[in-house]
């Protein structure tokens, strides 16, 4: 059995009366791409800050790449790459100057590690003289990732790296992450986008400082216990009101162009559900039984435990 890349045992952190991280335990395996999802205020950032040695836990222990986050923090910092949630590069320095700065902090150079960061940095090279503050959101994130990688860390910790980033740049960023992972780096990442959570090897759902569950994304999606229907119709508001009034309905959520309805098992057939909606004067209705997504599970668990 190999040592996990990240090993968290009963870690706690409180701020005044608030328990931000409440006795949490977690293992992230070597070379795993591990995602953490949870509402704002769940404690994700606090957990990450303890793992990257920027906050000292009030209790419990945590080891990253075999090193204790308190006792071995100096050594550990050389093996960690961290991208905080707020853009934290020097806005008045150029792309290249930022990268050179982070390289020197870790006693290395861009040249020595160029091949290492190339897949991420190459698209930025034409803009290397531009001020970091003048980059678009997607390019800023690529630069921040390059800076976090320049010293060849073993473990990369990314706090909501794609919040506020458009769909195309997000997908490019995740291709980069996958390339970085394949070079042997362990990645711990938090995200508010469920389409990103699905791309992780495993995902943890976090709420109120604790983990509600850890599993492969497919297994989390499959853990949804009720029959689920995707319903489409002309007027979303009337559709949702009618669905909420159905006696077997458990929950109703808008989901893009459809409405997702979870019902108590055994669910009514799609045909009888359609009939029910038509009897209430709704037109152009389609009902189909669908596979739950990780977002369905996330909302279900948030509501039952929140």
């Amino acid at each position, binding site marked *: 059995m190999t040592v996990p890349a990240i090993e968290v045992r009963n870690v706690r952190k409180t701020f005044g009366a608030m328990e931000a991280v409440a006795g949490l335990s977690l293992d992230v395996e070597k070379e795993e791409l591990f995602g953490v999802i949870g*509402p704002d205020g769940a404690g994700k950032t606090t957990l990450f800050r303890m793992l990257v040695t920027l906050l000292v836990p009030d209790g419990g222990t945590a080891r990253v790449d075999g090193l204790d986050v308190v006792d071995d923090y100096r050594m550990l910092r050389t093996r960690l790459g961290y991208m905080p949630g707020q853009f934290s590069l020097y806005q008045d320095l150029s792309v290249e100057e930022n990268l050179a700065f982070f390289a020197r902090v870790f006693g290395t150079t861009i040249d020595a590690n160029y091949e290492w960061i190339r897949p991420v940095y190459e698209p930025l090279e034409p803009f290397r003289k531009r001020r970091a503050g003048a980059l678009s959101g997607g390019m800023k994130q690529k630069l921040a990732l390059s800076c976090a990688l320049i010293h060849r860390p073993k473990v990369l910790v990314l706090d909501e790296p794609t919040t*506020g980033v458009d*769909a195309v740049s*997000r997908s490019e960023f995740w291709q980069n992450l996958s390339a970085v992972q394949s070079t042997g780096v362990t990645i711990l990442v938090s995200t508010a*986008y469920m389409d990103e959570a699905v791309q992780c090897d495993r995902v943890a759902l976090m709420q109120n400082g604790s983990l509600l569950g850890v599993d492969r994304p497919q297994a989390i999606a499959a853990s949804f216990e009720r029959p689920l229907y995707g319903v489409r119709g002309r007027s979303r508001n009337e559709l949702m009101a009618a669905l909420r009034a159905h006696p077997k309905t458990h929950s109703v959520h*808008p989901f893009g162009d459809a409405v997702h309805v979870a019902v108590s098992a055994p669910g009514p057939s799609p045909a009888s559900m359609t009939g029910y909606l038509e009897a209430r004067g709704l037109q152009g209705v389609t009902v189909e039984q669908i596979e739950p997504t990780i977002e369905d599970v996330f909302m279900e668990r948030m509501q039952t435990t929140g």
Partner: protein
Amino acid sequence: MNHVIETRGLTRRFGDFTAVDAVSIEVGRGEIFGFLGANGAGKTTAIRMLTGLLTPTEGEATVAGFDVYRQTEQIKKNIGYMSQRFSLYEDLTVRENIRFYGGVYGLRKAALRDRSADLIDRLGLRDAADTRIVTLPLGWKQKLAFSVALLHDPAIVFLDEPTAGVDPITRRQFWQQIYEAADAGVTVFVTTHYMDEAEYCDRISMMVDGRIVALGSPAELKGRYGVATMNDVFVRLARGEA
């Protein structure tokens, strides 16, 4: 139909860079208008012109019936604005935030007192009225921020990535509030990077390199490009494949 926003050839250049290039759109009363585009496409520059914060280089535009060149002060009085980054003052209480924004929007003391009490009741915040914002759950903060942006009965509210980084439940609760405002006749002009939210808009415009390259309802746009989701529409247009 009376248009709350109307632009013709609206353009803004910075030196030899054209950030917003001949944009012509019309947005109706009570419409939820999704203003989409990649980072750096020019959305923020366009919003700054429409909110009276930046003078256009050329073209015409009226917002709530007021001209973006000559009547910027009237525009500011007749619009609401909210973003994820700028909304409430965290160190002020609920009541203090309402009072502050009411003052900024020029509400008179008596009117403000009534509205403040009414708003606190409606949001179910009576027990939390004297609590500092920083300690409130995100869902409450968002509800309050949106209500405060509507405090002065604006014709239109600009929402600039209001749900960035927000969890799935809170995002949906927020959209419920958007629907209610639109039903009450408020025009909602919203940017988002969540493509499931793009589906919730009445119409969408898609901006690429300063130009509006597509405009229509989500169903029309998906039909036009023969794809199943707004995400696919976005990716195709943003990559210039359409």
